[in-house]
């Protein structure tokens, strides 16, 4: 039940770096540090990155897809006229997939989930599916900012009744690509909010509130991969 969503922020972040390490290991600074040839390769990579204005490790010019997955903790709460003003921390995760548009701009789809097992058959679940875009604003640092738009849902259920809310949502995030060995590890923080929606009982279809708004903070660490598309024109 843990949330797995298409293309999480982490994914977008990690893909470029991973792609570099797997397809062009000589270009990665860390991987080449102990050899003269590696130093030369790293220098070449830095120069190319500086010249093209893209993060170090980015597979410049390559049309690529990216995939990512992340796990972490999230704090969720509902805001409405009849909702308790309480926020709950629980496990959160996401999945993402997408394409690079430019070396410093990627798009994709992400799905995320937040899952709180209260006990005795009581669960709280947040899900969301969103279109996402990530921008790498700095040439020398693999930091990205992400924005997503989609639909999210909140569910509270026990063994008798379930309450559901579904509404448009948007999300903002920031993350960083960190290369460890051959892996791209991406810590990220995301803030999601939904517009108001009715929180309906599954038993009766009646809603104690017509205007429940969902809020969710997520802090995750993920792994990312990316690779060349079959038709891509490698340079």
């Amino acid at each position, binding site marked *: 039940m843990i949330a797995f969503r298409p293309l999480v922020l982490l994914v977008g972040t990690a893909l470029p770096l991973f792609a570099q390490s797997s397809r062009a290991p000589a270009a990665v600074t860390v991987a080449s540090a102990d050899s003269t040839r590696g130093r030369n390769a790293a220098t070449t990579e830095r120069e190319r990155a500086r010249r093209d204005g893209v993060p170090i490790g980015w597979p410049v010019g390559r049309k690529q897809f990216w995939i990512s997955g992340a796990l972490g903790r999230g704090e969720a709460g509902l805001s409405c006229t*009849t909702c308790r003003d309480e926020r709950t921390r629980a496990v959160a995760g996401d999945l993402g997939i997408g394409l690079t548009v430019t070396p410093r701009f990627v798009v994709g789809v992400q799905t995320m989930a937040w899952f709180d097992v209260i006990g005795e058959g009581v669960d709280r679940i947040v899900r969301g599916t969103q279109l996402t875009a990530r921008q790498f604003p700095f040439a020398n640092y693999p930091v990205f900012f992400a924005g997503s738009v989609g639909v999210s849902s909140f569910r*509270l259920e026990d063994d008798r009744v379930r309450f559901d809310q579904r509404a448009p949502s948007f999300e903002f995030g920031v993350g960083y690509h960190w290369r460890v060995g051959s892996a791209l590890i991406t810590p990220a923080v995301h803030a999601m909010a939904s517009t108001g929606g009715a929180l309906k*009982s599954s038993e*009766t279809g*009646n809603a104690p509130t017509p205007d429940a708004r969902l809020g969710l903070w997520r802090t995750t660490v993920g792994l990312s991969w990316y690779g060349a598309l079959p038709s891509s024109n490698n340079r």
Partner: protein
Amino acid sequence: MRLSITLALTVTVAALTACGDKAGVTGPSAEQIAAATPARAFGIWNPGPNECSKAIHDRFATVGPDGKKYPTWHPPTDPVSGCSFGHEHGRDPRGSKMHNTIGDLAFGYANEMLDVGSTGITRHEDHVGHKVEWENDVPMRVDGAAGSLFDVRCDVLMKLHQGTHSADAFTNNLHELNYHIRCSDRTELHLTLLTAIGKAGHFTSTCGGEIQAGTATPANSPNGGGQRIIPEWSCVERRVLVPAGQQSDYGVLHESWQTSTGIRTSDGKTLASFDPYFQVFRPSRFFNSAIPNKTGRPIDICYIVTADGRRARGGECERSTNNWTQLGLGFDDPNSRFNGVRRQVDVNSNRIENGGGPTAWYTDPLGRNGRTTPFQGSIKQYIASVNNNYGVSVSGPTMGQHRNYGGTGTRAPN
């Protein structure tokens, strides 16, 4: 004399309606009240010795939806002269957030409308039995997992005619109820009706078991849901008259009127239902079929000593009689603690099935035959246009349990 009464009426009515004005509910003017035709419920109270005059009492009046003059809430002592009315009507409704919406309560309006309509039932109640209770921002209990998510709060105001000093409720199950609730989940009801509590002619003993107290009065009273739990002699005698070394259990002198009321359309659909319990501690009566009027007095038990030495010990009897130094207290003596001034209301559940429907409904005084247009003898009711059945219980807590509404000179009948 007439001038002084008119002036006093003007001042009192202005004070009573001040709260209503600020929320857009404009209370009637003193002139309107003075000019209104008295309803049957107006002017029926008469003072005892050393109590406020009838004229002072009847200043506390309002005009009902039918344009007639009705008695309304007043404090146990007159705020101007300081005299005692000898009875009380519970909590001052002007402190309720609901007062801004509903204005002053017209005591006896549903009874009056029963005379106008075609139910064929006549039912009028005394003045002192009208008891108001309210609470603002009441947190409701939400069962199950939903309780961790929802914080439903309500403003609640109720007035039930709950006479606990006479034989009336032994057989009579029809009692006027003003029921007002407004909650954060959009549940909202503003209702006035005669609610049928349990079976007419019957009640339930505090110690259990149904008692047939007599014939239904009125004879054509409909049976209702819930029950009226009232103490009766055999139960009281066992619990209160105890041997030396024991304390009397005065908890048996407790009434619980457990309502179960529905507002229904003319085709029988239930638009709203609710089931508050109205409880009175230490009433001034119990049922005793062995005496002519069937109305026993708890204060009399304080002086009984059985052949085997059992008697009332401690508690209210001790305090009422000042440790039995005062003999022969009457049931209506202000020193008697059996006066019904301590009460509580259990809010319980409220159900509305009126999603998308009109909020204005007209029912007969029994809450039946609901239509969207008025008819002869109908009462206008407000029912929010929602369905509030969520598949989990949402119920209200108890209110008023720590309050004592007695004032100087308050006594039975109250």
